[in-house]
C-alpha cells in the first residue's frame, strides 16, 4: 500500500505525509524523483530519521519524531507553515482515515465518547492541499466498511478526498467511488462486499 501510494508522487512535488502509515510512504519514493516533504510544524525538505546518537531535540516532525535536515531544507514558523498549506502550495497530502464518504467527506480525528485528542493540523491540510489521498485499511478491525455512503463520525473536512488507497485497491472519489485498480488477488465482488457504498467500475 505504501509502495502504491508512493507512485502518486510526481517529480517536483511538495508533499505532506500524515502521522502513522503515511509517514512510511517516504521510504518508497523513487530515487530519481525530486520530492520535497513538508512537516507542518515548520519545515520544508524533511530528511530521514537520524542515526542513533545524532538526534536533535530542536528537530522534530509533526508526529514529534526526531528527524534530520537535507541540503535544501528551510525552517519557518507555524503561521508561515499553514499559510503554505492553506494557500494551496502543497501538491499532495497523504493521510489516514476512520471513514471516507462517496462525496469525499473525511472523518479521522474524533470518536465521540472516547477521549478527544484534537484535530492537530488535519483540518487545515485537507482544506488547503491540492490533492488529498487517504491511505487506510479497507475495513475497520471489526470488519465494518470505512468507505461509506455518508460519514457517521465527526468530519475533518467536507468533500476533500480525491483518492483512496486501501489493501483492496485504488479508488477515485468524485461524488461517487470509482475503482481505478484492484490489488493483487482481489475480486470485484470482494470490493463490493466490503464497501459501504456503491462502487463504480470502469467500462
Amino acid at each position, binding site marked *: 500500500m505504501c509502495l502504491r501510494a508512493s507512485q502518486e508522487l510526481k517529480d517536483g512535488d511538495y508533499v505532506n505525509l500524515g502521522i502513522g502509515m503515511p509517514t512510511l510512504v517516504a521510504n518508497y519514493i523513487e530515487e530519481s524523483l525530486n520530492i520535497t516533504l513538508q512537516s507542518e510544524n515548520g519545515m520544508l525538505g524533511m530528511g530521514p530519521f*537520524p542515526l542513533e546518537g545524532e538526534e536533535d531535540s530542536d528537530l522534530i516532525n509533526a508526529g514529534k*519524531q526526531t528527524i534530520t535536515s537535507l541540503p535544501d531544507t528551510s525552517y519557518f514558523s*507555524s503561521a508561515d*507553515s*499553514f499559510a503554505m498549506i492553506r494557500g494551496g502550495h502543497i501538491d499532495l497530502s497523504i493521510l489516514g482515515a476512520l471513514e471516507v464518504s462517496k462525496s469525499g467527506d473525511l472523518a479521522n480525528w474524533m470518536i465521540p465518547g472516547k477521549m478527544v485528542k484534537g484535530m492537530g493540523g488535519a483540518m487545515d491540510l485537507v482544506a*488547503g492541499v491540492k490533492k488529498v489521498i487517504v491511505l487506510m485499511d479497507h475495513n475497520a478491525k471489526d470488519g465494518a466498511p470505512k468507505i461509506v455512503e455518508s460519514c457517521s463520525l465527526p468530519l475533518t473536512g467536507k468533500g476533500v478526498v480525491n483518492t483512496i488507497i486501501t489493501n483492496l485497491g485504488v479508488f477515485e472519489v468524485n461524488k461517487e467511488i470509482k475503482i481505478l485498480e484492484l490489488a493483487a488477488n482481489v475480486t470485484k465482488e470482494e470490493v463490493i462486499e466490503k464497501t459501504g457504498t456503491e462502487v463504480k467500475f470502469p467500462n
Partner: protein
Amino acid sequence: MSKKKYKKIYSNASHALEDILFDGMTIMSGGFGLCGLPENLIVAIKKSGVSNLKVISNNAGTEGHGLGLLLETGQIKKAISSYVGENKLFEKQYLSGEIELEFNPQGTLAERIRAGGAGIPAFFTATGVGTLVSKNKEVKTFNNKDYIMETGLTADLSIIKAWKCDEAGNLIYRKTARNFNPVMATAGKVTVAEVEEILKAGELDPDQIHTPGIYINRIVKGKDYSRAIENLTVREK
C-alpha cells in the same frame, strides 16, 4: 546617534514575570510538543502560584514537562489547543470537568494568533467548513466556495523560547523549535522571551532576525534545558 542603554534583560525567570502575573489572566505559550518550550518561564509561573489561567498553546505538554507542570498544580482553567493527546492528566482533568478545552485546527490557531498580533480582528478560512469547528461561526462564500470567519487572538502575556537574542530583543530561533514562538511574540500585551544566549547589539545579522526587538518586552537567559524528546525515532545505519 545616541549610545543606547537597553533595559530588557532580567536576571531570572521569576524576576522577569513578577509584576505581570495575575489570577485569571490569558497566557500564550510557544512550543510544539516539547520542542521550543519556554521551560524556565513555565517553572516560574508554577512557582508563582497564579491560578485560573487561560492558556493558549498548541499542545498541553506531557506529564512533568511543559504545561503539564501547570496541570499538576491545577493552575489552568481553560486551554485553547490543537492537540493534547500526549497528556493523560489533561484527559483526566477534562473528563472530570476541572478544565475547559477549546480545540482549534492547528493552522487556524496559528493564523488567529498572527491576526491578533497584526491588528486583524477576523479573517476567513476554508479550514473546518462543514465540521464541528464551524459551529456558530459566520459562513461567507467567495468564488463559489464557503469559508468561515475566525477571530484574532491576543493574550495578557506571551512566553516564548528563542535560541539567541541581542540586547535590543532581536531574536533568532533554531530549526523546528521556531514553531509558534514568532507569532505568539507578536500577540502578547507583554511578551517575555527566554533564550539560550544573549549577545550584544550588532552581533546578529540584521537580515536574519526572526523576531524584531519591538515585540519583546523582557528577556531572560534560560538554564538547565531538558532537551527532552517525545518520540525518539532513529534509522539503521
